[in-house]
């Protein structure tokens, strides 16, 4: 099936270097992040360590060259490009395609 793009919000709703959660369908929670350079990343919102849907509320930063977010619960750091946990090998969250079109943020699903 071809990828479907779902519009979630105007780009202006994203705060620089912070995240916000979006609900795709009835269950899928995506955490959107806007970086300092304006780029947008989307990863799963559920913290795999605790099962709580909180990653969108973590601190955004960098580790080496990787743009990252730190889980607000126990502070494990995730690479926003790959979803990989940089502190716990083998732990990862899903990564979603995301783009900005006509000032709107769209997440690829399906």
């Amino acid at each position, binding site marked *: 099936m071809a990828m479907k793009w779902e519009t979630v919000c105007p780009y202006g709703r994203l705060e620089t270097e912070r995240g916000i*959660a979006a609900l795709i369908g009835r269950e899928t929670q995506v955490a959107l992040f806007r970086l300092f350079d304006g780029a947008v990343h989307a990863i799963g919102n559920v913290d795999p360590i605790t099962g709580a849907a909180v990653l969108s509320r973590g601190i955004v930063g960098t*580790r080496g060259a990787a743009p990252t977010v730190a889980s607000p619960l126990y502070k494990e*750091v995730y690479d926003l490009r790959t979803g990989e946990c940089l502190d716990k090998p083998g732990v990862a969250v899903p990564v979603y395609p995301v783009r900005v079109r006509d000032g709107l943020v769209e997440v690829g699903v399906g």
Partner: protein
Amino acid sequence: MKLVVVGHGMVGQRLLESLAARAATRDWEITVLAEETRRAYDRVRLSAYFDGVSAEELSYDVPAGVDLRLGEPALAIDPGSRKVTTAREMLTYDALVLATGSYPFVPPVEGADRPGVFVYRTLDDLERIREYAAGKRVGAVIGGGLLGLEAANALRLLGLATHVVEFAPRLMPLQVDEAGGAVLKQYVEELGVVTHLGAATTAIRGERPGSPANGLVLSTGAWVPADIVVIAAGVRPRDDLARGAGLPVGARGGVIVDDGCRTADPAVYAIGEVAEIGGRCYGLVAPGYAMAEVVADRLLGGAATFPGADTSTKLKLLGVDVASFGDALTPDKAATDRLDVVYLDPANKVYAKLVLSDDARTLLGGVLVGDASAYPTLRASLGGELPAAPLTLLAPAGEQADISLPGTAQVCTCNAVTKDQVLGAIAEGCCDVPAIKSCTRAGTSCGSCVPLLKQLLAEAGVVADKSLCEHFSYSRAELFDIVKVRGLRTFSQVITEHGTGGRGCDICKPVVASILASLHNEYILDGEQAALQDTNDHFLANMQRNGTYSVVPRIPGGEITPEKLIAIGEVARDFDLYTKITGGQRIDLFGARVEQLPQIWQRLIDAGFESGHAYGKALRTIKSCVGSTWCRYGVQDSVGLAIALELRYRGLRAPHKIKSAVSGCARECAEAKGKDFGIIATEAGWNLYVGGNGGFRPRHADLLASDLTTEELIRYVDRFLMFYIRTADRLQRTSAWIEAVGLDYVREVIVADSLGIAGELDAMMAQHIGSYHDEWKATLDDPVRLSRFVSFVNAPETPDPTIQFTRERGQIVPLQIGTVTPTGSVT
């Protein structure tokens, strides 16, 4: 090949570790027979058990591949057939190591078998003492040596009035000389311990034969009441197995071994307190460790020999530093080939003696009482030339000149590590104390050489790495000054101009946020600052394990009107929040979803509440007791002061949270001495205590100033807080900060204005107070600020479907949603 180790105490454990480190488990199949039912623990720190350190924390990890049989003592050994018998089986061995330690010597005193009489050697002993002491009033310790004074401290900690009976005319006769003993006695008695010197115990009495002890009769005729008696009159080697096997033992006990730690039977070794080596038994752990190393080497075919032992000791007994090293107890006058240099300062209760060779150049030994800061340097210089003039060495800490030790000096005696070895490790890249520890073992036993290790690191030019994180090579205090002096206002400025590249992380961003907040006290979620805040600050509430938040309105001093209580109750009921009284005298409402926070706060603000900053590294609560308004003992209005202070300092952001309390009299019902700053009322005014802490590492606060007027008190607290905020490290509570900078220094800065910055500190506080605003009110008043309180950007009202509750005792509780494996720091 089969190795059987008998005894799993400190030295047996050390043998196992050394063998493991040399990968000996490939050649040796190791069985350890242990009489105690728990694995080896740090007996040297045994008394810490009464300070709240658990048995588990004192215990050592057993190296892999060892068959440890707890609660299975060796009953007999037969060197002829190389067999050991236990109650369960007969084991054969190729090599046997006796590491059975000592037993406490109980003098043949009438009544020593009565209930209520204990010895002080094992964790089980301490558990029994603790149990028996409950509800008792008076305790006595027989023996005023090192162990006796530790036991006396234990009884004190258990809340008993304590007596110590010592046969010799001074305390710690084996370690300190007469003059040192006198200073020690002064300290001990000031702590309320009654000493009976030059007295033998002739009987332990009770009401009837066989009934519990109720006191001691002394050779002086004195009667010492005691509901509990601890005997600490020395130890004797546990050499019974060797005796039974016909192996030679010394005249005063102890299995005789050669300098390779071998007994008369070459397949049987003895190490630790049970061994008599070079004609003597050692009651200290360092010589035992040295023996363990010798045997580990020998078992692998080496030919190591016992290097001789240093019996230096340094202790903190009842809060008094005592150290003795080398040949300290030579009779003062008789010897003509040695010189004594004595330093006595009765006012400060400091006594020190150095024993030198007659040319005053070689250090032979010494005694320090009251201030042992020179101990690591002195001990390392033993037998060698003094690194500086005697009085320079003995001068109180801080006034010591540069002192340099020869490379062969033993820096860590417990583990026989020389200065050269430490420098070698540093040269190979060890850049902090933990690295030196794991690479050389120095500092891993009694810990008294750690200051010296730090000094060597500094001398070697290794600057302790105080970088906050990969983005900043500054400490928090340095960053604070940079931001302040340069007048920086945004994180981007700070990181582009002073960072090392990158865009920050969850460590440096909150630090910069906190510095900006301490300096400017602006709304913390506007502009770029929003991106810096931890989730708790970002949503002005504390995140819980399931992603919901808790809400804590401020209740200054713990005082609350019935109307306000009802308002909280109504909010909790209407939003179905779990409600709990906190340990900080206020009320916490749990289970709020992020999109509910503004509605909840609207209701609370309407009822007259404001943010309690439970989410911030900021002032938390100022607890109070009822004080003179109601309490028959109160001497000042503690509630009034607590409220005034809480309103003064509310919202003040800091390196870590700040807690306080005010008690209305010395009974201290508000627990002020456990707080960052605590105030206790006196007839004449207020006493101010600083640097207290509960939590992970409890610490009682130190008295900063006494009998203050309210105005003086507030001035000192203002400066104390601002000085802390300016200079402390990230996440450093005032307790750790005070220990790092020193109470006297803080007092000078705050009270005597020794740095001339008091005016500046006062102005910073005035600026904070003048610019206070309630963060929640400011949030509710602004639609833009409110817009972030949504569950989903595209479905703002839809609750997060993963949040689910069940009910317990009539209230909601989170339904467990995942396995929580806490990792990093929970801040």
